[in-house]
């Protein structure tokens, strides 16, 4: 698969098929068709915006939770993962190599809401043998974007 189109969309999902076609030296229809296919085949999962919630009035708390589980015969880790990711609060879920098995990020309205979720929902799932919750204090960078704007160099008038 040619990943150039995906690379461009991953950087800026708002590029139109017409713009993408020009940039890649291809036909617009051809690009539009390929995007439709990529969506249909679930290669492109969605087009969310990256939001800095700290600049809004909404309080959002994010936590990274390490989860240890005992894999189950026949299903491995998948069955338990499935039971976890169904929760609306779960933003992402990855199976990890190393000290623990699943990395779960969840968002909630408050520390308490997050703690509550871990105790009442996560820790009690059959097969979960332990959790460790890390609250995210500050986000610096996500998906290649910085949360704070870098200072710009002073404006110059020069001739090159």
């Amino acid at each position: 698969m040619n990943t150039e189109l995906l690379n461009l969309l991953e950087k800026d999902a708002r590029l139109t098929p017409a713009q993408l076609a020009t940039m890649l030296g291809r036909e617009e229809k051809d690009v539009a068709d390929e995007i439709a296919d990529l969506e249909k085949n679930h290669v492109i999962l969605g087009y969310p915006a990256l939001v800095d919630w700290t600049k809004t009035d909404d309080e959002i708390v994010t936590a990274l939770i390490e989860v240890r589980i005992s894999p189950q015969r026949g299903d491995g880790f998948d069955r338990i993962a499935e039971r976890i990711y169904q929760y609306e609060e779960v933003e992402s879920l990855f199976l990890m190599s190393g000290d623990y098995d699943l990395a779960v990020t969840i968002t909630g309205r408050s520390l308490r809401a997050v703690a509550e979720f871990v105790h009442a929902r996560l820790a009690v799932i059959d097969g979960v043998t332990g959790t460790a919750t890390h609250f995210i204090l500050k986000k610096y960078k996500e998906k290649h974007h910085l949360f704070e704007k870098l200072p710009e160099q002073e404006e110059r008038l020069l001739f090159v």
Partner: protein
Amino acid sequence: MIDYDSALSGRVKGIAPSGIRKFFDLLENMDAGDAISLGVGEPDFVTPWHIRDAGVYALEKGFTKYTSNAGLADLRRQIAAYMRRRFALEYDPMKQMVVTVGGSEGIDIAVRAIVNQGDEVIVPVPSFVCYGPIVELVGGVPVYVETKAEDEFRLTAEALKAAITPRTKLLVLPFPNNPTGAIMERADLEAIADVLRGTNIIVLSDEIYAELTYGGRHVSIANIAGMYERTLVVNGFSKAYAMTGWRLGYVCGPQPLIKQMLKIHQYAIMCAPTTSQYAAVEAMQSGDVDIEMMRKDYDYRRRFLLDKLRGAGLTCFEPRGAFYAFPCIRSTGMTSAEFCEQFLLQEHVAVIPGTAFGPGGEGFVRMCYASSLANLSEAMERMDRFLKNLWNKD
């Protein structure tokens, strides 16, 4: 009372200030928050972090003294490896190169080392603004040869032949070209070489944009049979690695020429900035991927801008190098200067009149596409509107 006029050198006074000074005054006094400048020719990328980090690290370790005049030995070895790797050119790092303060210094010391009073230097135009004035400063005579849109702004053997006289000392070969975006391919260079072999003319090949060549690899004229011994290759870190502010370049060439240029460099400059040289070592060691990433990104924008320019109804030859488009604006009935002034005043977009780049630039404007896609997109919407208003009026 001092009479500054008679205190100053006649040669310096004789040099015309940059042709677009007036234009910049206009820009400076314009208080438009929505202004977009496609005027400055430099990468919009910040220097890749690993390169900046190498500079910071050099400072932390206290590498703050002069380097040897010709530059850090390690850097020169890296440059030699780079020239071999990217352009198949062999240079002795200890005898055939000088690390300079930008490519600009390389051009300056090359001209000073070669040109005597009254010697002629052939300068294809439109091109970067520095060649003529530097030649004039040493008492040389710039001989401008206009490249033509119908030749894709390449220097032709015929035009070169017609410009050569017994006084011709040097040919400046500024390709990939600022402002036209023209490149010279191997066949074009062969034709130029045919004219030059058997003469005593030196070529000053300004290849600062070499890495920004689209749809094919850059070929250096030093690579053409019989040209290596008569070619000075000027290159640098500014454009390829987005390092304009580090002010670092280099010249490679035959030892007898480099040896003399090194003298000028020793007396006038001492050495290029040490911090920059350490950063440059890192750039050459592991910066090939950065070059590729940026080149690809410029290429997207190049296609985008070209398509929009043509869509707006302007004739524009396809630029194959650097990061400029050079559309023809004759269909507007305006001169380049008028066009740029009106476009700036009405639509708040700064582009540069082709006339700033020497004779042959009239009827064209330079637009730099090293700017975000959002900027280019907005600028071209305004261009569309500007042209529509203009053409509907008539």
